[in-house]
């Protein structure tokens, strides 16, 4: 039962990263890819009906974590107190940027909110990447299962790491690059004309950087937490995840060359999902590794809620997810195709 809930939450987080990832990515590349007023409106319209639904995956995953692994929720959320508060503020700022831009009546107001949107999207991607890297690397859990991390220390991993050290910064940079490419491919898929061309060009520029940092991140993970390899040694099937990472990067490259946006975007979805499942496969059954001497790893078995609670949860979770998938299919189906410049009476 614990294993099942571990993978359920991993799956929900992957859904969040793939879905909200593209609208965060649009935010990251927004200032560079869309330079004219018309293109900026188009770029925002491409994520308009879906971005807040995408964000709901974060809330749903958080809620599921709360009830399925209360100890992990309590420990991780209080341990990452400050960074999480900053994530909240950034989510608020980003929503304000998107929302207020459409109500700004002059060029100055619009460029101000453009910058807020782009800045908050970039920092969010950086924070999420660093956060994931923190979880992979491990935290100094105390005997009471709690911890409190300083924001920065001497940048080294080890017994007393900080939230930002060399490893987590790599994680943050990788997230920014990967989501920027993901967002560019989404824009290329959803728009036409010169915006589509710019988006393809940016995806092409970002690809080598994503490849490079991905290649660095794999050995870096083993250095930061040698135990990551244990599962891979015992279950060679886990190597499917890194294999998928390599394959999908190849697919993305060829799709960008051939100008096939859909293939590129799907490749990017697979890339993100494979990176996350690779990390999850390396962790399992640990949820939050402990570094330093005081505590022990938070494992599925220690953090999980009682079997009776989980049994009840499984029933409504399954029903709820089926419904959610149905809504999302309706949504994406109705808003399928490219966002066009003229056809809709959106204008001012």
């Amino acid at each position: 039962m614990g294993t099942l809930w571990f993978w359920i939450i991993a799956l929900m987080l992957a859904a969040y990263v793939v879905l909200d990832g593209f609208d965060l990515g649009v935010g990251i590349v927004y200032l560079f890819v869309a330079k004219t007023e018309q293109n900026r409106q188009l770029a925002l319209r491409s994520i308009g009906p879906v971005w807040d639904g995408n964000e709901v995956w974060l809330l749903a995953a958080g809620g599921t974590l709360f009830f399925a692994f209360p100890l992990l929720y309590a420990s991780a959320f209080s341990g990452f107190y400050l960074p999480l508060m900053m994530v909240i503020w950034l989510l608020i700022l980003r929503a304000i940027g998107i929302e207020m831009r459409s109500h700004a009546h002059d060029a100055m107001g619009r460029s101000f909110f453009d910058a807020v949107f782009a800045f908050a999207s970039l920092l969010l991607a950086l924070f999420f990447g660093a956060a994931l890297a923190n979880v992979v690397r491990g935290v100094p859990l105390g005997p009471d299962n709690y911890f409190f991390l300083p924001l920065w220390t001497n940048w080294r991993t080890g017994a007393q790491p900080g939230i930002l050290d060399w490893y987590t910064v790599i994680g943050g940079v990788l997230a920014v690059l990967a989501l920027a490419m993901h967002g560019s491919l989404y824009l290329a898929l959803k728009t036409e004309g010169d915006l589509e061309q710019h988006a393809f060009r940016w995806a092409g520029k970002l690809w080598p950087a994503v490849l490079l940092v991905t290649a660095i991140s794999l050995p870096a993970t083993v250095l930061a937490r040698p135990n990551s390899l244990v599962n891979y040694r015992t279950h060679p099937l886990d190597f499917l995840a890194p294999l998928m990472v390599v394959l999908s990067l190849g697919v993305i490259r060829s799709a960008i060359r051939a100008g096939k946006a859909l293939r590129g975007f799907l490749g990017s979805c697979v890339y993100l999902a494979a990176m996350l499942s690779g990390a999850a496969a390396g962790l399992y059954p640990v949820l939050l590794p402990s570094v330093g001497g005081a505590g022990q790893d938070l494992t599925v078995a220690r953090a999980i809620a009682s079997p009776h609670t989980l049994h009840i949860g499984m029933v409504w979770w399954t029903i709820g997810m089926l419904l959610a998938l149905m809504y999302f299919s309706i949504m994406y189906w109705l808003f399928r195709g490219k966002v066009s410049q003229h056809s809709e009476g959106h204008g001012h």
Partner: protein
Amino acid sequence: MDALALHRLQFAFTITFHYLFPQLTMGLALLIVVLKTLALRTGDEHYAASARFWARIFAVNFLLGVVTGIPMEFQFGTNWSEFSRRTGGVIGMPVAMEGIFSFFLESAFLGLFLFGEKRLSPKAHWASAFLVFCGSWISGFFIIVANAWMQHPVAYHILPNGLFEVDSFWALMMNPWAWLEYAHNMSGAVITGAFVMSSVGALYLLQGRDVEYGRTFLKVGVVAGLISCATQIFPTGDLHGKYLAKHQPAAIAGMEGLFHSEKGAAMVVLGQPDFEHEKIDNPIAFNKVLSFLIYGTFSSEVQGLDQTPRDQWPTTLPLLFYAYHIMAGLGTYFVGLMGLAGLLLWRGQLYRSRWILWPILLSFPLPYIANTAGWMCAEIGRQPWVVYGLVRTSAGYSTHIGAGTSLFTLLGFLGMYSLLSILWIVMLYNFIQSGPRSLSHETAGHSLTAA
């Protein structure tokens, strides 16, 4: 201030600010369905335009509700980690269900409702408005289930390691406290929606612009306001008080300012509690009315604060006393105002009676104050417990987050939310100024993104 006080203050501040938005959106969601139904039934374009106008205001408030709601879910873990660790298996369930059953529903169909009027048939568009309404009301239900369990824990047992486990899912969902609190809360939300809608209607009539819309807003607002104000007092408020007297006697004694148990207790309408001498200064009171309201006879004994050990008294008694009196006083005013407006509407004089349009216009902030005060009653009344009678609030917070860190984030929220308030007011002012006629098909979606 110590760390516990700061954690409490931060949670109180963020949730009070958050609740400004859902109370309007839950109320408006219902009224928008009414407008869409009128549009579908009559085929009259002006009802459709009215719905579009309110959808736009809904969207902005919904967005602010979402962004100020995210901190609430996070703060269970960040600031109240011990509470979360112990009760997560129970209370995490309704919290997770809210996300899975209502947020997905609401966000998907809000997108359709705002952006899809052209792509959908009128019936399908009506259905998307209806599903947004369902989403927002289901969402309120799960949050109330979570809160009601903290007020009145049911269907649980405590494991040897101190964690709480659910006995029965149905008993958790059917907690009688939850249904009472839900009914009282939702009729409060409809009051807010109705007052805001009537207020805008009164504004248009007083300004002599968009008169046709002003009449519709007033008609729908006053009818909904009349019904919801009445149900707010009877049966929901009345039953709630009786339930409270049975299960949280210290809370109701604090709300009423009843220091000593009394037979034939009086209801204090106005007065200032004096905690040193345990009496009410300058009371204006109705003899024996409190006993009647709670037990149905004038001579029953009502438990005073003296029946509860002092270390279990609600920790901020004066606030509790005033919150309750503000809520009850405003509730009485609402019934009077809406009763009068309803009478004038029935006699066909409402739209011409400027003397009543003015108070309707100016009353829109009052339901916000009354609902906030109502929440304060519930939450302060529960103190010093985070789970009533079982877990003290002082045993629930994140002990390793220092007071300074909590103060830092409290200040951060203060700054962030001041900014949000300014933007919110400017935006609503602009919407109301530009009026419903400026909206064509699809432009309702304007407000959730650019273009």
